């Protein structure tokens, strides 16, 4: 509690309460564990303060006997189901979930299959919605993977389908996917594919202004 804070002085109670809520919100919606440095950046608080907040939150969930926990895993904080409820989660996974791809997942998979290598941003632009979560599921399942990096600024990850995916569909290679025939990509799609190659910005670098996109 009595931490040494940077020159500015200790943050007020209100600041801490707000930061605590912000941490909850961010970790809740993140698909990957969130490093404390990132949380510190977003809340503009010292890393040590963030760590204290996270630990207090985690302890609070444990005290309240929540069904989830906040854990630091693989260099970041994430929510996960509590081990004691594994039995229920397993039952849910086995029985509750419909055993097929959601429409969103199917469409994203189709876009990646036919347009690979393709960046997350391009796939999002074509679908018109953020595909982060869906992409993570597909990656988790081993249907798609990172196949390259965009040579342009930002070096966006480019995704493609896996050999496992091809095997499961009984295809020798992506060339054996049913041809699209006389399909002509719409202007919107062409634009989405072209644009995002340039627009995808490196999250932290600042020199993007030099590389003005036309």
């Amino acid at each position: 509690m009595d931490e040494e804070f940077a020159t500015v002085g200790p943050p007020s109670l209100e600041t801490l309460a707000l930061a605590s809520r912000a941490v909850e919100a961010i970790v809740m919606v993140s698909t990957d564990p969130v490093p404390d440095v990132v949380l510190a950046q977003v809340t503009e608080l010292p890393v040590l303060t963030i760590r204290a907040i996270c630990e207090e939150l985690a302890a609070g969930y444990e005290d309240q006997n929540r069904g989830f926990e906040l854990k630091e895993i693989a260099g970041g904080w994430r929510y996960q189901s509590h081990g004691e409820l594994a039995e229920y989660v397993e039952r849910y996974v086995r029985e509750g979930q419909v055993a097929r791809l959601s429409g969103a997942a199917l469409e994203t998979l189709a876009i990646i299959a036919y347009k690979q290598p393709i960046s997350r941003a391009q796939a999002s632009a074509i679908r018109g919605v953020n595909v982060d979560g869906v992409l993570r599921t597909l990656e988790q399942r081993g249907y798609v993977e990172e196949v390259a990096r965009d040579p342009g600024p930002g070096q966006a990850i480019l995704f493609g389908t896996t050999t496992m995916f091809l095997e499961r569909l009984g295809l020798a290679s992506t060339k054996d996917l049913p041809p699209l025939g006389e399909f002509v990509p719409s202007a919107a799609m062409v634009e989405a594919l072209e644009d995002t190659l340039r627009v995808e910005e490196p999250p932290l670098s600042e020199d993007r202004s030099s590389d003005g996109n036309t």
Partner: protein
Amino acid sequence: MMSFVEQGPLTKPVLSKPALETEPAAPVAGASEVTYKVQTETFEGPFDLLLHLILREEVELYEINLSEIVDAYLVEIEQMDLCDLETATEFLLIAATLVELKVRRLMPVDDEFDLDAELGLWEERDLLLARLLECKTFKDAAKTLDGMMDIAALVVPRRAGLEDRFLDISPDLLAGMTGVKLRRAFLRIASAKPALPSVSLLHVTDIKASVADALEELTSSLPTSGRVSFRALTHGLTDKLEVVVRFLAVLELYKQGYVDIEQPGVFGELTVEWMAGELYADEALDGADLYEG
């Protein structure tokens, strides 16, 4: 004088966005002085335009002169780039109704007025009014939906999904997946082909009168009558949509080169002339099969 500062629909304070359209406009000297600033917005259809014209001086709504609205409407239409036949038809139909209303107000009714025509005009007007109200209703609903989307966009759902430890037991998501299904999904999401210009009859499917029927009638009567005005062709038709259907049938015949259409000027009387001789009447019908079903 009524004022419309309060607008009924947007009663949910949280959801309502500033109702720009209904804010009292800057005081206008008088309705008679309305000048027509050329609007650069695009109007999504004839009702949209008409509503805009009527409501833009909402405070003065009761003072607004129909004739000014009609003039403004005609000005707008003239400036429009109406390449979509269907849309153009809608605009013109409403313009016609408005002009008729205006004429009825300006001109004293002469002795030989036609009761049927009079009743027809009222019916047209009621229909127009009903559609304007419907348009306004959905316009306001759309605004609220937009506001709801803005609010909903403030929250982000959790999509992290299963933890690795449960992956082994989770069901096979590729079960039943085939290349063909994949292609279908891809085409569904990616194939937004620009609409080809065509005479679409979508908005007439709900009524009994079909273009095929109208074509049949026209091809049986036109070859013998030679030149005839469109007004005469639609004489006795009470439903506006029937007139539209008749109009589209004429256009179809024109497109196929069976008739010629003459119009002395904007909103002038249309004259239809059969050009193909009697022998080809049946062919004209055959060519129209694209409207079936």
